[in-house]
């Protein structure tokens, strides 16, 4: 059987509630990190962006651009940023994700992370551009670290978010598959 390089076994189907829980948890974790580190840390990876891209690539029929938009709007309000800044970035991220989802999963994990990097960078660059146009000036140079860290977290996201689907199913002596 032809298997994608990044995948060692056949996966069980995803449970929709797990997608929602994981997206909400990503938002929660991102908020906690931001508030715990005292805010205004430009290098902090956007876990929500990573989780959204991950699910859009893996389950494009369940997580779509509209959901990415809504989560972006929530993050805008929470951060007190320009309304629509994250919404626009996540919308574009979602679109790019749907464009590449057919081929991305056929690569090995490190290559997947490398291919996700330009997408994540584009989402961040769009935010920098929007704030520049809105008159807020350039961000600190450490903002460049955020998409890098997100791409580095891709294998971790793969391991964590696909774990429920990697469960071995109940073995059946009569039909060993």
């Amino acid at each position: 059987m032809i298997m994608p390089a990044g995948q060692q076994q056949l996966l069980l189907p995803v449970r929709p509630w797990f997608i929602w829980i994981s997206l909400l948890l990503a938002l929660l974790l991102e908020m906690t990190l931001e508030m715990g580190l005292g805010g205004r840390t430009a290098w902090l990876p956007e876990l929500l962006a990573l989780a959204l891209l991950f699910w859009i690539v893996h389950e494009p029929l369940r997580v779509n651009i509209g959901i990415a938009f809504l989560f972006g709007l929530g993050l805008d309000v929470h951060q007190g940023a320009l309304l629509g800044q994250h919404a626009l970035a996540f919308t574009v991220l979602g679109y790019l994700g749907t464009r590449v989802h057919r081929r991305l999963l056929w690569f090995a994990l490190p290559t997947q992370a490398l291919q996700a990097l330009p997408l994540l960078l584009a989402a961040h660059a769009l935010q920098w551009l929007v704030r520049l146009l809105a008159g807020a000036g350039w961000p600190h140079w450490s903002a460049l670290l955020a998409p890098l860290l997100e791409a580095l977290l891709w294998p971790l996201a793969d391991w964590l978010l696909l774990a429920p689907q990697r469960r071995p199913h109940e073995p059946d002596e009569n039909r060993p598959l």
Partner: protein
Amino acid sequence: MPLDTVDRTPPSLFKQGHSALSKLMVLSALAVLLMVVDTRLRIGQPVRAAVATALTPLQWLALAPVRALQTGSGYFGSLQSAQQEAATARTELIRQAQRAAQVEHLTQENHELRALLAMRSKLPVKAQGAEILYDAADPYTRKLVVDKGQAQGVEPGAPVMDGYGVLGQVTRVYPLVSEITLLTDRDQAIPLLNTRTGQRSVAYGQPRLGQLELRFVAASADVQVGDLLTTSGVDGVYPAGLPVARVASITQQGEGGFARVLCQPLAHMEHALQVLVLEPLANGLPDENVKPVTQARPGSGQGPKPGRAGQESPR
């Protein structure tokens, strides 16, 4: 193998909703519209308030471990540092008590002098305490979020101070929380009075340095390092006489004829915990019908309207 592990509702091949490109177009346009509404038209507040209310439980949940860590770390502080802190607080209290007695006397004197000069008396400013929840994560601005909102009567534009000086101004009010823009934010300005010379000026935020800058101060102006700057009260937002900053450095700028004056804010901008939200001054004017004691401007028929000052957007 049980049947429920198999995805029994295969996705339809031909009905997949709108294409990704059309969704991108529509939603991007919507996002850009929201940005324009938020920056130019200033009517994005209802959208914000609605989303913020929906987010509130999530925010409290996310804040819980942070608060637990903050309070938990207090348990491991040494006895010595706690005693030291208590001693400092006691000394400070004695100093404040002495000053308070002085102020009492001066207030009485001021009241009588104002009565003698037939000037309008100043109203006491109402205030309420609030606790800082977190620093807003937007790296472009300097903002805090406190745990008092519309429900507690916080108004947009209200000045905020901590125990040491003016901290900033309430810029957005949500039902349960509100956002404070610090004085060090790029877009924040505050009119100041030099207590040594009586000279008035306006300070702008310098977020990179965490300081304030007095702009357009003549190179020959009488400003010295260490001068105390207080609010001048001419803006109708900040009550007069609140300490704001001390002059930290003065640099002469070549040919410009202006000096670059940087001031260190007295308030603890980055690690304040408790703050005081004052009522905006414009709401506390004694009587709308009393003619303001200001000269009528040439060209305009009447003096400035008393109720309007400070109601414009703080940005």
